[in-house]
């Protein structure tokens, strides 16, 4: 008895996936609003709680306070204290609770206040959330979402600025999704909630309140497991995700003025990786730079580069460079600019790759 069907290939324009397959509401008039990223998240949460009574939100300070970043603003007012719950202060508990709820037909959306506090939750996420379906051969499932703000650049205290997405991405059974704009935050979060399996949804808090985008609150999800090609180009593939997409865009703009055409790819789902899109891009451009905030060694950039070394060796006209955090502890606020990859770092890596050979 296998509950599985072969998945359809997932591309931006491809057929519906598990998540987009879920029905969306088309009867009521959809409101359109200018939103920054954190507002888009809030809007998606409101939308899905209104349309799916099994959705429950839990975490520290998510109820009356609306989340320390206001991502869960007004949810308790709208959906009540049963479905929007402040938990005691214990991340392992939050994760275990979510696993238990998910096995019984609810869809918990847990907030871990900052990614730096996720470690106590890992035992539940790795040993249970990722395995419940497999362990029970499909009898019980674990459709939960764990939202966590992550990344640096807001001058926060110690432990509030790390990017440890690679730890989660290495765990089979966990999906790891990272939006890079308000629009994608809205669509990807809806997809994550509708996904029948656990999804870790990492929110780049540095751009929580960056550029607003016009979003139609129509419940339309975006596909998971799919890169978004933000800009097509011929000379080099620039691969990134999360907050750094904005630096990458700046660099692509600068280079465009110099007549260099960069193909910019937002990986979005960092696990499982959509290497099809990346390989096609590199097959075209022959050059690749990957940028992420996490420490370079063992980061997801390494996995992408390794797959290029396996599948695209003959396409590569230059070494694959990674622009990343250093292999050291994230420094406190005074030195975080020194640590975080910036426009100049990406720029000079691209120059190096373009100059090669």
């Amino acid at each position, binding site marked *: 008895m296998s509950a599985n069907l072969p998945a359809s290939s997932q591309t931006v324009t491809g057929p519906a996936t598990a998540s987009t397959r879920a029905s969306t509401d088309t009867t009521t008039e959809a409101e359109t609003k200018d939103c920054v990223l954190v507002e888009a998240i809030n809007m998606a949460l409101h939308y899905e709680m209104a349309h799916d009574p099994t959705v429950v939100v839990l975490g520290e300070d998510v109820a009356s306070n609306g989340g320390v970043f206001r991502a869960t603003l007004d949810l308790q007012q709208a959906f009540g204290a049963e479905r929007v719950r402040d938990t005691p202060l*214990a991340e392992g508990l939050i994760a275990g609770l979510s696993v238990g709820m998910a096995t019984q037909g609810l869809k918990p959306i847990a907030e871990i206040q900052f990614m730096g506090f996720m470690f106590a939750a890992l035992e539940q996420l790795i040993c249970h959330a990722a395995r419940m379906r497999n362990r029970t051969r499909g009898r019980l499932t674990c459709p939960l979402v764990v939202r966590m703000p992550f990344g640096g650049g807001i001058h926060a205290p110690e432990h509030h600025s790390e990017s440890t997405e690679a730890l989660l991405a290495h765990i089979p059974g966990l999906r790891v999704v990272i939006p890079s704009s308000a629009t994608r935050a809205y669509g990807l979060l809806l997809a994550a909630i509708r996904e029948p399996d656990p999804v870790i949804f990492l929110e780049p808090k540095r751009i929580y309140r960056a550029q607003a985008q016009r979003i139609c609150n129509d419940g339309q999800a975006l596909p998971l497991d799919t890169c978004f090609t933000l800009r097509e180009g011929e000379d080099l593939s620039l691969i990134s995700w999360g907050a750094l997409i904005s630096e990458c865009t700046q660099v692509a703009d600068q280079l465009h003025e110099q007549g260099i055409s960069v193909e910019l790819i937002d990986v979005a789902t960092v696990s499982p990786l959509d290497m099809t899109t990346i390989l096609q891009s590199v097959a075209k451009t022959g050059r690749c730079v990957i940028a992420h905030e996490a420490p370079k060694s063992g980061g997801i950039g390494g996995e992408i580069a390794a797959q290029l070394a396996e599948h695209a060796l003959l396409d590569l006209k230059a070494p694959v460079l990674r622009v990343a955090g250093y292999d050291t502890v994230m420094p406190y606020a005074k030195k975080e600019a020194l640590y975080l990859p910036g426009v100049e770092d990406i720029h000079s890596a691209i120059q190096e790759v373009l100059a090669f050979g």
Partner: protein
Amino acid sequence: MRGRQQFSIHFLQYLNAQGKLDLPLPEWITDTPLLLTIYENMVQARLLDQKAVALQRTGQMGTYPSTLGQEAISVCTGLAMAKHDVLVPYYRDAPAQIIRGMSPAEVFIYWGGDERGGNLNRTSRDLPICVPIATQLTQAAGVATALKIKGEEGVVVVSCGDGATSKGDFMEAMNLAGVWDLPIVFIINNNRWAISVPLAQQTRAATLAQKAIAAGIEGLQVDGNDPIAVYDAISKAIQRARENQQPALIEALSYRLCDHTTADDASRYRDADELKAHWQEEPLLRFQQFLHQQGLWDAEREKALQQRCQQVIDTAVAEYLALETEPPGAIIDYLHAFLPHALETQRAEIMLKSHAINSREDQK
């Protein structure tokens, strides 16, 4: 100003080690079929357990954690629960799981190293066995929260060992059960050992039941070798949980008469005399003596019971040994609801590798 808060923890035992009554029996004791069911399930549990150990010893099964001497707790847990309640078991709870509808063969299948041993007859919503110690406890709190949110009247029963009470999850779950008024009963099988670590090195608390005080919930200590006390305590706690949405902790004092698992050798760290002394307290004999005294049991019934149990076991073993190998794709097909595109190549590799392994084995 000096104020004072008082707390107390009670100990409950009806049958002492000689099967004699220490207290007037509870009201439900007139329910003869129930008494017999408790006994029969304990015998069934012990015999199935013996078979599991034998299968392991003969190389037909993997490492296995025996329930020897701790049958009263798991059997009474299973019997005290209603069908729509949810069991969140630990790895010495096969007796409860079987009472709740798991096929006995699944015990062998699971410990034989096959995921289908967690399928619990396909439709159960009980959680499977949990290997990482204490992690089931917060999950159980989640299950109870779900029942509450969905407005169902089920109660969650979750169990763990004495060692598990040292792990933070235990306290986190009990504390939450208190704050959220969860319908959940926590049961500790205090078999006095966590592998080689004796209770005295696990905690200085005089009882494990008093850990409930930290969560502001009710705690009770019972003689875990006394099926009457165990059943009484669990069924009443379940009732309170159902009626008043009140959690409770029950510490059942037992003793691990076996090695920790078949991979362990308890004689390395445990005194032979201590073990011998505890054999005098074990629940089966005690309860059999009680039933004899009550005129409810005799040698003939015992013989018939043994035969029925043997039949169940034979069927289970046959089912286990006849189980067809799961197709190789299963190791990846159940990871997600739908196979992610990124895994398609690996799935193909798995099929190829399986094929290669099989051909090599055929050649041997």
